[in-house]
């Protein structure tokens, strides 16, 4: 038992030395979370604002000007150009110069007072970006009453919607916890995916398996340094998320740390499994990408999980990231207690044990 611990420690210290010597990997440990958080935190933005549009005002009256002004007050659109005829606006949208063209007919005021409920103006929207298009489509219900300020309008509509969490709908509150999952999946799985196959490729494995070290000792010794790195990354992301994006954790820090730890292990286990099965480092990277893309696309990081087709949901349920995102968003945004996230945590724990077990089965102390 003591000898076994000593051998684990030996592998652990060896990994630390190699990490210290490998400046690139060491830099990636800190730089990947930094860059991804900055890049995605600022750019992944589902709040559509200040979409530049081209305007064709055929009326040119104070009525039409107030209409435009009120539309701009929604902050969804911003008039970026004034064009003369509707065809030009349509062409500008086709050319991709502007995301939409707003065409105000000469008789806008007559249309407003007509009983038939004719639309007042036309918004020609580039539908190729669905997120933006749906935001612009929502403008169709824009309430307008001339002579008043938009903000004073009583709410119109049949449903009163109350937002319980994230009432300002800040994307960062949704993105930053999600990035925690993306960054941990990326770094943890990638580092361990090459951990064993690299030793095989460089010939170190022949030396290693001729020593008394046992497979489990080797694996645990290799995993522990990355576990520490993973938790350092968690700290970096949460601190930066707090400073830069004002994301505060409303739930328990202890529970959050524990959940991250379980998730880190799930990813390390998967990385090991890849590493014991891959023929070489390139193969390991390919297998990693094969797994990483669905993790980003299906886990609910990019698109709402419940809105995905049933088959995609089943697939997503197999991915650790799907479960982690539920847990982490629950804790960070909704103060979810342990009981609420225990199911997902159990899955992650089970995933780790399964992948570790399969890795041990796949790792033979042989060269063939």
């Amino acid at each position, binding site marked *: 038992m003591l*000898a076994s611990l*000593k*051998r684990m*420690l*030996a*592998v652990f*210290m*060896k990994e630390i*030395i*190699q990490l210290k*010597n*490998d400046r690139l990997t060491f830099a990636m440990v800190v730089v990947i979370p930094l860059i991804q958080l900055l890049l995605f935190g600022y750019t992944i933005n589902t709040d559509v604002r200040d979409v530049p549009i081209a305007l064709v005002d055929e009326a040119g009256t104070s009525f039409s000007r107030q209409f435009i002004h009120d539309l701009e007050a929604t902050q969804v659109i911003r008039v970026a150009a004034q064009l003369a005829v509707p065809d030009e606006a349509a062409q500008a949208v086709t050319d991709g110069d502007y995301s939409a063209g707003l065409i105000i007919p000469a008789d806008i005021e007559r249309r407003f007072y007509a009983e038939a409920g004719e639309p007042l103006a036309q918004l020609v929207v580039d539908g190729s970006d669905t997120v933006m298009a749906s935001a612009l489509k929502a403008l169709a219900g824009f309430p307008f009453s001339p002579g008043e300020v938009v903000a004073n309008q009583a709410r119109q509509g049949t449903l009163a919607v109350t937002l319980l969490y994230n009432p300002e709908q800040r994307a960062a509150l949704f993105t930053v916890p999600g990035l925690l999952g993306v960054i941990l999946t990326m770094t943890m799985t990638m580092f361990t995916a090459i951990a064993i196959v690299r030793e095989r490729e*460089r*010939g*170190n*494995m*022949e*030396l290693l*398996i*001729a*020593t*008394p*070290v*046992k497979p489990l000792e080797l694996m645990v010794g290799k995993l522990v340094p990355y576990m520490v790195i993973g938790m350092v990354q968690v700290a970096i992301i949460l601190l930066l998320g707090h400073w830069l994006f004002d994301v505060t954790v409303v739930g328990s820090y202890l529970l959050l740390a524990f959940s991250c730890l379980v998730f880190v292990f799930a990813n390390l286990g998967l990385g090991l499994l890849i590493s014991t099965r891959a023929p070489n480092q390139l193969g390991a990277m390919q297998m990693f990408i094969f797994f990483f893309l669905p993790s980003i696309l299906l886990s609910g990081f990019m698109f709402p999980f419940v809105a995905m087709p049933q088959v995609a949901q089943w697939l997503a349920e197999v991915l650790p990231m799907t479960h982690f995102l539920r847990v982490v968003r629950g804790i960070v945004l909704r103060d979810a207690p342990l009981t609420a996230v225990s199911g997902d945590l159990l899955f992650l724990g089970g995933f780790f044990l399964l992948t570790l077990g399969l890795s041990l089965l796949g790792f033979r*102390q*042989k*060269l*063939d």
Partner: protein
Amino acid sequence: MSDIVIATRGLSRCFGDFVAVDNLSMNIPANTVHGFLGPNGSGKTTAIRMMCGLLDPSEGEVEVLGMQVPAQAAIVRRSVGYMTQRFSMYEDMTVEQNLHFLCRIHGLNASERRNRVTEVMAEYRLGDLSSRAAGPLSGGQKRRLALAGAVLTRPKLLILDEPTSEVDPNTRREMWESFFRIAATGTSILVSTHLMDEAERCHALTIMNQGRKVADGTVADLKTSLNATVVIVSGPDVASITPQFNAAEEVLAAAQSGNELRVILHNDVAQPEQFAQGVAGEQYRAALTDATIEDVFVVVTSEGERD
């Protein structure tokens, strides 16, 4: 402990259709430097890997230090030092870090570790390189490091797979001196090589060809029991008479060396000198000489090929 350190019986290993090691039976006695001689691809490394438990035999048995391999490989590994053919230390770690890592894996405590690492670094002239990364070291330095790593735990058995490849002659001599020093302390050594001068230095040899054992025994026995005689033919232009010798049925091999032609003849040639003289002609001189391990090697490997 028995005085046989490695025993194999009917050991075979196939990779698909290719038979890398074919029905190998050998015994290596304790306290000797035993050479494993054979051309590249003759199955030496595969046989060694089976002895270390790194490959499973397709058929046959291996016993190392009295224990069954692979069944008891985990225990055997504690008493066997193995130097791989390809450099297998961590290239991104320093000489000292590599040695400390191996000590830790073998469970040496801190003070033993420091002492032993200092000791082997002095013995294999690695002191000045201690804080250099292993990767950029020269071929000879890497070999010395690998040997130092293999002897760290003072193993009872040392298995060295072509330890002197890519090594300059001085380092080669130095390494062989250390093999005998190690053997004198009671460690048995199995060393594979394809170099004849190295083979000459061993106590005993097992010669491999195309996966099979073609001869084994002590170096002296191998030479005396050779089924051939060796004649040196010297004269003005030995290159011109080489084809005549190669064409003759009685000749097993003929190879030029400077102004001499070394001719290996069948034992059934009654008067080898006269026979050689006859083939060579008047202006050449033929004289009997002692067989070397190279002659043995040439004869036994060519016999293997005729099967």
